[in-house]
């Protein structure tokens, strides 16, 4: 008889996520259920507002991946209104995007995920000399001296002895699933603290270009920060120097700290091959060659595509505008479709609260009934995983040289076959590998911005479509879609604009795919499928569960933001283009 274990809250994520598992007599997870337990209804709030403001409201879907919804929203509005932004604006938005990815992934690795693999208490028994020797063999990170590790260990020791462990209290220290030697644990703890210091530096790029972080500012049609080399208030050489310094610092952190730590830690967990899950991977593609537009899809660093059943020999084409390809289902969701439809494309999306769960105070949910606020998005009917691993595998399968090189290098270093990447560990590794590509792209994009300014182009904003009176016929209905590859995976924003106001807004976000409940056919979502089959050392200390869940980097406020205003279906849409 299986035992049901509830893990709620899942911490070290964004938002509120509940996981329930059944563990069988052999100690293996036989069933899993993923429930997003908070909903805010942002899309309902968008109705009737000025489309030029949408980015700001939608940005507040998430304060961790703080820029990505803004970018997707801007792209959706610019798609609907057929606005092409200036080259500098593309470059500046991309600098914001790449620095977001780099910051987000490093913070995820050290602060949200590492403690699933690193035993903080074990670091107390490490030999700092040995830790330094190991660290120096891995990279040239200048701090990796015996004194540095010894200092960190002393601090840690007095901290633990104080008896007040603060954020480290009551965790799974000493759990048998921890495999690192004490010295590697110490190395990781030291770099946890360093990364904490650094993460507030890199985001200064957002402050310079968007005013602040979290939640920098944006504008439809370009960017609001002007470029003028002769102005003391616009982007000038002093500001560019600041940005360059921050980029160089980020490059050092990624190359000397993150990648070496990732490879070192992974090498001890090569046998932990669980968490592969669906093996269906979806990417909408992003990251055009610096200066190009999102519409220049053939220049993407990470192209769009879908892989089914782990078969890398075939990459299926993906079209986010196709009504049959992207659909959302609500059979197991506390929402309903008024017309009884099974799946809906987001341009026709509808989300009406219909809570049928147990009364609060409940102990367990039931996976045979609706059990989450999260919709179930599907691609051509398939349950899909999105995220760094999906991006990397699609790009690899399509033969993108930069991606192929770094993946082959990592597989070679770890001495694992490519198929081993389809796992919890592979998800974590893919995130690190793409961070290396992103930090390089950050520098290239910045160089391209400087070169473009040097060529005499300082334009950052296109005013021609700012005034709503210029938007097609004012009585028309237009629709747009904006996509990007956010840190957590492919993100889609769908907008319908009528008479200059938002008529309907729907976002299909990465964690909606990954945290998906079952669909009409009863097929599980990515988290759920990834958990099934995992052996547990001690089900009441569910370290293995949070390992796999954290490898997806959940963002639950994103996943369950939805609610549509329109109870009636949008039947007539005249696309004026």
């Amino acid at each position: 008889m299986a035992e049901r274990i509830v893990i709620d809250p899942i911490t070290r994520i964004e938002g509120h996520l509940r996981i329930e598992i059944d563990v069988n007599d052999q100690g293996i997870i036989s069933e899993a259920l993923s429930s997003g337990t908070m909903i805010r209804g942002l899309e309902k709030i968008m109705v009737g507002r000025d489309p030029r403001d949408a980015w700001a409201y939608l940005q507040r879907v998430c304060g961790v991946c703080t820029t990505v919804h803004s970018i997707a929203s801007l792209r959706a509005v610019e798609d609907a209104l057929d606005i092409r932004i200036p080259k500098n604006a593309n470059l500046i938005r991309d600098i914001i995007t790449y620095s977001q990815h780099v910051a987000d992934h490093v913070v995820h690795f050290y602060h949200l995920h590492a403690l699933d693999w690193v035993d903080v208490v074990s670091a107390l028994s490490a030999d700092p000399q040995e830790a330094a020797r190991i660290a120096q063999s891995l990279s040239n990170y200048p701090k990796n001296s015996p004194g540095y590790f010894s200092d960190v260990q002393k601090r840690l020791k007095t901290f633990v002895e104080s008896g007040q462990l603060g954020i480290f209290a009551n965790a799974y220290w000493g759990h048998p699933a921890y495999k690192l030697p004490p010295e590697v644990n110490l190395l990781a703890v030291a770099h946890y603290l360093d990364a904490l210091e650094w993460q507030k530096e890199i985001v200064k790029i957002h402050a310079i270009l968007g005013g602040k972080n979290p939640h920098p500012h944006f504008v439809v049609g370009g960017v609001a920060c002007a470029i003028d080399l002769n102005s003391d208030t616009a982007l000038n050489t002093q500001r560019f120097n600041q940005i360059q310094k921050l980029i160089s610092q980020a490059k050092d952190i990624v190359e000397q700290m993150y990648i070496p730590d990732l490879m070192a830690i992974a090498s001890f967990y090569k046998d932990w091959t669980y968490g592969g899950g669906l093996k269906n991977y979806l990417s909408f593609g992003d990251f055009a060659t610096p200066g190009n537009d999102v519409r220049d899809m053939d220049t993407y660093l990470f192209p769009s595509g879908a892989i089914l059943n782990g078969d890398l020999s075939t990459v299926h084409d993906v079209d986010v505008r196709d009504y049959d390809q992207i659909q959302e289902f609500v059979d197991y969701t506390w929402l309903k479709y008024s017309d009884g439809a099974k799946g809906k494309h987001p341009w026709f999306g509808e989300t009406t609260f219909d809570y049928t769960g147990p009364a609060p105070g409940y102990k367990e949910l039931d996976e045979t009934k609706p059990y989450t606020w999260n919709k179930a998005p599907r691609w051509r009917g398939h349950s899909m995983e999105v995220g760094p691993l999906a991006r990397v595998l699609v790009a690899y399968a399509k033969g993108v040289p930069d991606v192929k090189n770094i993946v082959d290098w990592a597989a070679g270093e770890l001495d694992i076959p490519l198929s081993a990447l389809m796992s919890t560990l592979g998800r974590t590794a893919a995130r690190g590998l793409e961070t290396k590509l992103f930090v390089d792209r950050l520098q290239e994009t910045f160089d391209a911005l400087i070169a473009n300014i040097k060529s005499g182009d300082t334009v950052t904003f296109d005013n021609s479509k700012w005034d709503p009176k210029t938007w097609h016929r004012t009585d028309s209905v237009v629709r747009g879609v904006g996509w990007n590859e956010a840190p957590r995976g492919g993100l889609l924003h769908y907008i319908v604009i009528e008479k200059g106001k938002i008529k309907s807004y729907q976002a299909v976000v990465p964690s909606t795919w990954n945290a998906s409940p079952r669909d009409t056919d009863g097929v599980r979502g990515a988290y759920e499928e990834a958990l099934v089959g995992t052996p547990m050392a001690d089900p009441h200390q569910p370290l293995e569960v949070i390992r796999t869940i954290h490898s997806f980097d959940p963002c639950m406020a994103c996943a369950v933001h939805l609610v549509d205003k329109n109870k009636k279906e949008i039947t007539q849409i005249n696309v004026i283009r």
Partner: protein
Amino acid sequence: MKETFYEYAQRRGYSRKDFLKFCTAITAIMGLEASFTPKVVKALETKERVPVIYKHFQECTGCSMSFIKMHNPIVADLLFDMISLDYHDTIMAASGRQAIEAAEKTKEEYKGKYILACEGSIPMADGGIHSVVDGKTHIDIFREYEKDCAAIISYGSCAAWGGVQAAAPNPTKATPIYKLTNKPVINVPGCPPIPDVMAGVITHILTFDSLPELDIRRRPKVFYRHRIHDNCQRRAYFDSGLFVEEFDDIGSKLGWCLYKVGCKGPVTYNSCSVMKWNDSTCWPVEAGNPCMGCSEDNFWDFGPIFTTLAQIPGTNIIYNPDKVGAAVVGAATAGVAVHAAATVAVEKMKKKDKEAPVAVDQNKGVSK
């Protein structure tokens, strides 16, 4: 809990000089005169660490992300530890039952002594089912923890005012914390707030065993006394009538006033123009973006973000954006319709202010 903050600092390897520097900085951040520094030093030398339970409700975690971006190094290092951060969803190591037990332990051991920090609003529609953790509604969890806390910090505009989810039509009936309790509440609004403001608030409580002086809307006066507009670096251009008419125009390159592209600085009480963001690197207005008014109650329903405010409250003068100041440069982009819409929006705001349970004292801050 026998250890003082100073002893802790020593243990962490900070010198007496570092410690004094920190005390001086924090005195300044709290807006106190230098003569208060010895009091701060004394307090931190002798006071115990205060346990904090930080609960996430309906939120986006932006406030937590801001929180960990505190910049004064000693603040960044010590904030986790000058307080004992015993529960915090985003960064704590434990999950599930073990996480909840950590919070419950603190709640029992420090009855009446811990600070409850809240991020996010609380949904009150349909019995609170729109946000549930561990099977319990947020309102029930809040009740459990507010009962025995010393004070509540409502961190961010969601906790303070309801936030983006409370914008019309507020589908989940998202409710700010102060409306749900009789405990002392400190509102620290902002979407998100400037992180060093949080450091200042906590340090004040720790140092003086009292809450900082609050305004009528429960905001610490030290950080929310002035309007963005009062200390804005573009203010001289406002007074001279030099405005950015559209993004990327000459005024935008030269740093002119953003009032006509929608800046809400004249109605927004916050420290952005003084403290700036991310280690004083920049702030929205400096980077060419109009202030959205993100620390004001219900700012999401102010009206379109990029639309000019038709009136500057507290002046009794209806400003025509085209006639403000001595000289008018360039053509107005805000047409008659936009102007009219803004007037309606401002009228709505004024009306709302009258209805609010705690009246705005915005007029008092205006000296012009």
